[in-house]
């Protein structure tokens, strides 16, 4: 037959399938996956960060034949995985301070190079607080020196470990414990924001990518691709946080999916400062659909809502859609929406 066969299982969006050949399986569908972050960790029910970390590190382990050292910034991921003397990590793992993960990873990488062990690869990881705020100086230095480290930021858009305080990655209008839903502009301010993937690109490093826990195949591909480069690489993964976002624990993946499908979180890849690939939206949704299930945005809806806030958030999504050409001819549009297809 000349038409390519499109099965719902093969090449679909599910983790795996009983009918797939061994080489077509995702890392997460293999019973023998590393489980880099194993059971018994103390992350909340439905933690997106725990999921994202296992996805990313298992893929990196598979790509390097298990030769990975991970350096962790302070944050949920560090706290819930290593209450003394237990550890959930099944790979060499270091923790030093909140702000110095990139610097420590640089040191590990240099030490391995000095020992001639360049087959052992280094990953630094942290939350958005440790990455875009506290650890930003060392991270920028790591980029600028082009150290051979993959830095992964698990972005849950606030300081969740310490009790949900606003970070540089907190989105506009979000309620946190330092940006209450009161006053004329409730929630976090509509500031310039701090778009770290774009800042990383501005350093001209070999590889920058964004991903979410909702698209496993995309995430695994990006980690594996990142491991084919030498030098500084940056991967920014959106990981919903049921506690901080005020969402139901079972909605973690669904919210990550809606963040991408609304255009609020553009998923793309860049090499040496240029965008090379974007992940088009499959079923476009209005931002409401993404925001409504999250209690941190509850003040955007209901009789006391400030409609201009919602309009402003939709405008951010629309800007992303135009900038990254997220809507293509295959995108399913909502019935009442007209969007120019890129």
């Amino acid at each position, binding site marked *: 037959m000349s038409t390519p066969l499109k099965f719902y299982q093969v090449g679909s*969006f599910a983790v795996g399938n009983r009918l797939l050949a061994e080489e077509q399986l995702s890392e997460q569908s293999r019973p023998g996956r590393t489980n880099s972050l194993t059971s018994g960790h103390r992350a909340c029910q439905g933690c997106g960060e725990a999921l994202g970390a296992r996805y990313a590190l298992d893929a990196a382990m598979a790509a390097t034949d298990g030769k990975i050292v991970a350096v962790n910034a302070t944050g949920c991921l560090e706290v819930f995985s290593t209450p003394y003397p237990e550890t959930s990590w099944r790979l060499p793992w270091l923790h030093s301070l909140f702000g110095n993960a990139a610097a420590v990873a640089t040191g590990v990488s240099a030490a391995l190079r000095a020992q001639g062990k360049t087959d052992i690869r280094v990953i630094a990881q942290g939350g958005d607080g440790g990455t875009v705020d506290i650890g930003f100086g060392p991270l920028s230095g790591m980029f600028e020196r082009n150290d051979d480290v993959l830095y992964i930021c698990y972005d849950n858009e606030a300081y969740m470990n310490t009790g949900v305080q606003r970070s540089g990655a907190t989105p506009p209008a979000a309620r946190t414990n330092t940006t209450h839903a009161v006053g004329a502009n409730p929630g976090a301010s509509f500031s310039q924001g701090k778009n770290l993937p774009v800042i990383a690109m501005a350093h001209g490093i070999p590889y920058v990518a964004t991903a979410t826990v909702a698209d496993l195949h995309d995430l695994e591909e990006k980690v594996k691709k990142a491991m084919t480069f030498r030098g500084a690489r940056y991967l920014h993964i959106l990981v919903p946080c049921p506690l901080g976002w005020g969402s139901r624990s079972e909605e973690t993946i669904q919210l990550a999916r809606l963040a991408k499908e609304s255009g609020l979180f553009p998923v793309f890849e860049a090499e040496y400062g240029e965008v090379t690939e974007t992940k088009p939206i499959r079923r476009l949704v209005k931002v409401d659909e993404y925001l409504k299930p999250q209690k941190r945005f509850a003040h955007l809806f209901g009789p006391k809502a400030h409609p201009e806030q919602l309009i402003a958030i939709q405008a951010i999504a629309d800007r992303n859609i135009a900038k990254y050409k997220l809507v293509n001819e295959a995108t399913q549009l909502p019935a009442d929406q007209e969007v120019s297809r890129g």
Partner: protein
Amino acid sequence: MDKPFAITLNIGSSLANHTGSWRNERPVYVNRLPPCNDACPAGEDVQGWLYEGEAANYEQAWRNLVRDNPLPAIMGRICYHPCQTACNRAQVDEAVGINSVERFLGDEAIKQGWQFKITAPATGKKILIVGSGPSGLSAAYHLAMRGHTVTIRESAAAAGGMMRYGIPAYRLPREVLDAEISRIVNMGVTIECNAKVESAEAALAEGFDAVFLAIGAHLGKRAFIPAGDTARILDAVSVLHMTADGQPPMLGRRVVVYGGGNTALDAARTARRLGAYEAIVVYRRTQEKMPAHEIELKEALDEGIIMRWLSTVSRVDEGKVTIEKMALDEKGFPQPTGEFEDLDADSVILALGQEVDLSVIEGMKEIKVEDGVIEVDEYLMTGRIGLFAGGDAVPGERTATNAIGHGKQAARAIDSWLQGEKFVHALRPELASFDKLNTWYYSDAPKTVRPKLDAARRASNFSEVVQGLDAETAVFEARRCLSCGNCFGCDNCFGVCPDNAVIKLEGGKYEINLDYCKGCGICANECPCGAIDMELERS
């Protein structure tokens, strides 16, 4: 252990921390009822046999299918597939072509010579089935599978009932019919043809442990229509029967068929094949009210059949039919308008429904007959102990699929009754409705459309109209199944658990590790097919 400075405890793993104690809900793998299975009058486990078809295990798929329906090659052609009407995939792109895959499996079974295997020990019980149509054959198969000795008596010259004498060959080739009947005969079922059973009471007295009446409804309903002496009026059942016998009646060049059911359309399409260049179907109501299936209507229209809606036949004369136009009243019923029109017609075929020949139960006072059909209880038993009835002869929808379902139900009921028990239905699981699915995970793929013979070519002969799938397209079509409510082994639960609390077993099965499952519910939420339920933990 020699510990470094300030370290007092040995290194431990978080596996010591059983986070399952946090849980207040637990995921449970369930089997919900797919809408296709729910809609199938023959009670097929459609999702179950498609599952094997997806892996191209065609023989196993066929064996799963024939657990319920022994006539897949036939039903893959003539069933009006309510399964596809119910299919959840229709809300994603297009319903799965279940019927065409069924036909493929049925044809493959004939090609490969697959036979039924009776595993039950012989019971020594003898059962008589009156009639060899779909309900009779289905009952015979299911009874034989349970170890009973089955005899079918058929009044016609060949077995098949309405499948042979009502359904034209262009919809059901006779070699397919013969192949599936002979497979049932190969089980040891005796079919006696030209053996009309005159009296059910006498048959019971012959020493059968039970008798199943599967006599169908073969008498064409007549209506009083004023007609001239030379007017040629036939009934559709006879026309189809005579055509099937190879002695088609003379119909002429212009034929009017009166009625709006499938039989009317079959008669009109048959008339075209017998040489009529014009076949007009006169029906007193509108297209929306027409009982014929829309697929048959479409195929008939494609072949040039002309429909006259809102019309009744008021008089027939030689070469001419007078019809009266109708109009719908405010209740939606057709009312005469007094406006008449003459149509040229060499013959008129009445397709006004069929009646049951009740002579077989004449004089049996304990059997209730209402509206011309035999009353039965929920076990399909008539008022006479040991006498069961099903198919078109009892109340219900008159389709071959329904009749096959009746055959199965009767067999189960008879089997239980012979053991002095009452058949108990398994509880129907919750329906796997569309809202239970997470359709994100399914990619879009339109249905494989069965190629159709060119309509003009088709109208002039009795060769089969709809062609089947080949192995490649069949597996493609099977894989479009969403597997509603039943796990298909996609690994999603195994992948999406933040706590690695799902264990992947062999053969696309999974198990929850309750030591670590925190009960977040992501697995249930992300299950594409709705096969995981969250249940409250009892403290």
